[in-house]
């Protein structure tokens, strides 16, 4: 039976090791947005030995490219994008920089799953296509790096009770495999 947690960023090892595949997490605090273009820039900075534009230790990165905000709003619609495009970058941020959480949708590769086990990190799924609903949980947004990337710029978001499901935990579990096996009807 899945459990429900309320967590606040930055996340610690203790925060993430208690989480299991299928658990519901309401996340609050500061999170950062980045898609593949921004991830590539972060990795380039690491290769050059330079400092990253935000404190990544214990951080949660949200894979999202929001729509422009309407006047008076902090952000436009802001649901998750497909995560596999970040697969080649996430393991280094987790293993070398201490990133603790990722928010997206869709499958991750074995390298990401292994990094989650090795360095204790979690991949959360948010509901794709629920951008208007999810934006309500975002209280402020500020572009902190790469404004030239437009929707793909790195933003600092303040979220309250952002609704998530644990897809990959620190034990190698994968909700996409477990959930599907449970409901699959094999043909005789």
């Amino acid at each position, binding site marked *: 039976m*899945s459990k429900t947690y309320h967590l606040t960023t930055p996340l610690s090892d203790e925060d993430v090791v208690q989480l299991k595949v*299928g658990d519901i997490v309401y996340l609050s605090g500061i999170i950062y947005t980045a898609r593949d*273009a921004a991830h590539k820039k972060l990795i380039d900075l690491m290769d050059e030995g330079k400092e990253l534009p935000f404190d990544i230790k214990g951080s949660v990165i949200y894979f*999202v*490219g*929001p*729509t*422009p*905000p*309407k006047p008076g709003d902090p952000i*436009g*619609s*802001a*649901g998750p*994008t*497909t995560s*596999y495009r970040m697969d080649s970058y996430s393991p280094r941020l987790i293993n070398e920089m201490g990133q603790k959480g990722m928010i997206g*949708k*869709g*499958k991750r590769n074995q390298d990401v799953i292994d990094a989650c086990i090795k360095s204790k990190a979690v991949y959360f*799924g948010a*509901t*794709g*296509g*629920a*951008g*208007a*609903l*999810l*934006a*309500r949980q975002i209280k402020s947004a500020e572009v902190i790096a790469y404004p030239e990337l*437009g*929707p793909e710029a790195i933003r600092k978001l303040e979220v309250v009770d952002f*609704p998530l*499901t644990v*897809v990959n935990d620190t034990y190698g579990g994968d*909700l*996409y495999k*477990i*959930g*599907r*096996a*449970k*409901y*699959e*009807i*094999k*043909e005789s």
Partner: protein
Amino acid sequence: MREIKYEDIVKAVKDNIIYSGTNLPKDALTALNKAYKEEESPVCKEVLRQLLKNADIAASEARPLCQDTGLAVFFVKVGEDLKVVGGTLKDAINEGTRIGYEEGYFRASTCVWNTRANLKDEIGYNLPAIIHFDLVAGDGLEIEYAAKGGGSENVSRATVLPPAAGREGIIDFVTECVSNAGPNPCPPIIVGVGIGGTFEKAAISSKHALFRTVGTTNEDATLNDMEGELMTKLNNLGIGAMGMGGRETVLGVHIEANPCHIASLPVSVNVQCHSSRHTSFKL
């Protein structure tokens, strides 16, 4: 010869883009409601609840349903006796797209294929639109529009099967495509299948199949039968809403078929996410 003003086309395109980006059409809403009621998996039921609530918020507050407001795709039937005054039809559709995406606070999602630089300042906000023209008899103008997101487009596939593969080969190809896609295209999905024609004709047919109203039957009995078989097979995969494990994976399977070369059997699968933003209008 009937004349139609360039500005009238621009306005109609703009209005339809803004409306469909914020209001989930009735067929998709009905299908999502049905999936919500019938889903046995608690985690997927919660996802479907969020999607229905999202549609509600988007419509009442005029917000984009999804941050991926898509590329603008049009199927346009132009009467041979229609003349556009004040500009070209293609320019009018692109201009309506540009204004609609910008005024609706939608995302500009077109970029250069290699540098990935956004094209909003170079070509125009979310331009160019993808437009398929068809010349027909009369003086009418019929425009079908959909906002097509990237996640579901990324799992779409086309192939050319040997004719001996037949019906079974097509069903296997579609099943394999949806199975491999798993959670990535934002299920529950609508599956468009194009059969026959040439390589590109099958692909265009699979796209056009997605414009059909969800929940309607195919007029062709053979294709309708295949759609039913595929619905069962694909829902049996257990993928569920957002791939988290459940019964409701596919809201509809729509097939369009064309005559083809004696040597070939082209097949294309175009996947549509649950946010099936489409509309049609006549001018």
